């Protein structure tokens, strides 16, 4: 089907402003194929149903809009943790700022190193999970990423990784336009935690493809904060094997435009996938969580828990879907998206979806929007807790269900403290 002229023009204008990176044979083939996908789908436009609540214009236009660098004296996330640091500055790997990757105890290398080799395990994943995730809903920005990503890491874990891998994205130029693509493979029984933080660039397009083999466990904790003017479109594509576990949590504060897509396919029986998010938005904050979980095996469990606190005209979006394929019996699917609106100017737009083709499943979903409970507020104040502190306590309590999805207790406490810090810096 031919693309509408406007979409075709927007797509070609963007592509004309970019150059395909060079690499070995396998990655060149993957990039070419991805480019063909972009041309076939066209980049997102504001009339696309999947972008009904979030305007993609600034993510698509050739030039990244400027984003001022912002700093405050609060320490960076995960600073006090023992981890393998992998630093990118405006989307470019910074070896000097990173830890020695050869000493990490796991297989971890730069994308371009893997791309230069004739044979590499990453070939079977790079762009493969992304392509699979294009159906039944198109995600053209992810295909654009596969075609044009200039950097990233590929990680393979066979046992239990000793330390988390911490991907740190620094933003140094007001006009940087970064595209990163990571590929992560957890072999049978492997365990890995990946941390992500930092504003990355003025505009950031990131894809993470994760293969979680049988009995493997993948944990992901991400913070998105600081530079408010940054724009980001991120995708996670994950494929889960038998009895594997995938748990991802994202904390988002600040940001004029963030779209986080998470596409998960449960392909092995008894697999577990949890995706959660806690977002705090103030003013011209726009945050979009778009999740698509496909159950394609028996007795799998999936949970989506998304909480947003919005004020001064901030906007939160949730598009979440559970698709249960024929034969995916005993599926246990749960989805909740809730917003706490601290004033009348803020917006929460939610589109929860269930599509079920098996008859022996338990799926539930709910979405609510509300204000701070006056009775709770009065109860706290009547005990001497000042208004602002009482509101903060109730905001944290509201977010707790999402934060509790983080399994690791020190990480969970760390995130709670950061959320508290943000609340203390922002007056109601």
């Amino acid at each position, binding site marked *: 089907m031919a693309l509408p002229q406007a979409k075709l023009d927007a797509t070609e204008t963007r592509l004309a402003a970019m150059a395909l990176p060079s690499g070995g044979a396998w990655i060149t083939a993957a990039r070419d194929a991805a480019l063909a996908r972009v041309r076939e789908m066209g980049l997102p436009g504001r009339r696309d149903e999947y972008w009904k609540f979030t305007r993609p214009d600034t993510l698509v236009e050739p030039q990244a809009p400027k984003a001022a660098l912002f700093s405050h004296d609060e320490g960076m996330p995960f600073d006090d943790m023992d981890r393998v640091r992998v630093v990118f500055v405006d989307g470019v790997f910074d070896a000097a700022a990173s830890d020695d990757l050869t000493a990490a105890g796991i297989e971890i290398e730069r994308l371009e190193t893997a791309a230069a080799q004739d044979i590499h395990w990453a070939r079977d994943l790079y762009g493969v999970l992304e392509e699979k995730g294009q159906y039944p809903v198109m995600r053209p920005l992810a295909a654009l990423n596969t075609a044009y990503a200039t950097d990233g890491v590929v990680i393979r874990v066979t046992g239990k990784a000793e330390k988390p891998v911490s991907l740190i994205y620094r933003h140094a130029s007001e006009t940087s336009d970064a595209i990163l693509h990571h590929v992560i493979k957890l072999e049978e029984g492997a365990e890995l935690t990946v941390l992500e933080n930092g504003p990355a660039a003025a505009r950031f397009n990131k894809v993470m493809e994760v293969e979680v083999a049988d009995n493997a466990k993948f944990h992901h904790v991400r913070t998105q904060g600081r530079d408010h003017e940054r724009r980001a479109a991120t995708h996670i594509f994950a494929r889960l094997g038998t009895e594997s576990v995938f748990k991802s949590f994202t904390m988002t504060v600040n940001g004029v435009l963030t779209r986080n897509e998470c596409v998960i396919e449960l392909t092995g029986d008894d697999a577990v996938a949890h995706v959660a998010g806690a977002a705090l938005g103030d003013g011209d904050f726009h945050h979009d969580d778009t999740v698509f979980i496909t159950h394609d095996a028996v007795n799998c469990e999936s949970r989506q828990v998304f909480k947003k606190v919005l004020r001064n005209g901030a906007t939160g979006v949730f598009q979440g879907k559970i698709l249960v394929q024929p034969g995916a019996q005993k599926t246990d699917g749960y989805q909740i998206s809730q917003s706490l609106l601290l004033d009348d100017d803020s917006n929460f737009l939610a589109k929860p979806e269930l599509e079920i083709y098996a008859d022996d499943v338990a799926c539930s979903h709910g979405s609510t929007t509300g204000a701070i409970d006056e009775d709770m507020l009065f109860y706290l*104040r*009547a005990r*001497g807790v000042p208004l602002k502190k009482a509101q903060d*306590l109730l905001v944290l*309590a509201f977010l707790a269900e999402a934060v509790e999805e983080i399994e690791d207790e020190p990480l969970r406490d760390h995130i709670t403290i950061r959320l508290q810090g943000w609340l203390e810096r922002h007056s109601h």
Partner: protein
Amino acid sequence: MLEIKNLHVQLEEEDKKILKGVDLVVEPGKVHAIMGPNGSGKSTLSYVLSGRDGYEVTDGTATLDGEDLLEMEPEERAAAGLFLAFQYPVEIPGVGNMTFLRTAVNAQRKARGQEEMSSTEFLKVIREKAKELKIDAEMLKRPVNVGFSGGEKKRNEILQMAMLEPRMCILDETDSGLDVDAMKLVSDGVNALRDAGRGFLVITHYQRLLNHIKPDVVHIMSDGRIVKTGGPELALEVEENGYADILGEVA
């Protein structure tokens, strides 16, 4: 200590007068009880004193140790030493009971210019007081009042009172929903707090609570006014003859 003069209150949303000239003085070390039929304005009095929204004071004053309560925010009243044990304690999912209490204790200390309590000291004190009220460690860890039985909620109110050590305690229908054993626990908790410097205002519909918490003065409230004041014998009179007799007598 607590002085209420000619207090007139109506609902903010509608033109409905609830309190129509309440006069009351509670002295330090004394327990005053307010009894009265449903709808007489007893609970409204407790809410207005503690600063709940939705009420408009049209006339009169309420002071605590000479300070104007009605001008203060609810948290300022608490820091000044006022405590309301709620008739219906609120459930707060996601806020741990212990976190809540520690925040409250330290916020009040801070407001009074006192040093905050360290977590070790706090733990020691709360464990002691919780034990007396038969509140186990599990209940302290749970979110505030979530999943608590009626009796557990009321015991939790008294624990908060014991931790915050207010000067003036208002108990709003603390006996409602309590069985005999729970009533005894709660009353023992209250009685343990009685001392020469602390005043109590016990609001109740029934006399039975007053068997456990012995009042010095009993007031009968009706239609937004205190219509009769007497000693503990007044409560027994209500128990025996109901409110109708007394109200008929004053009318």
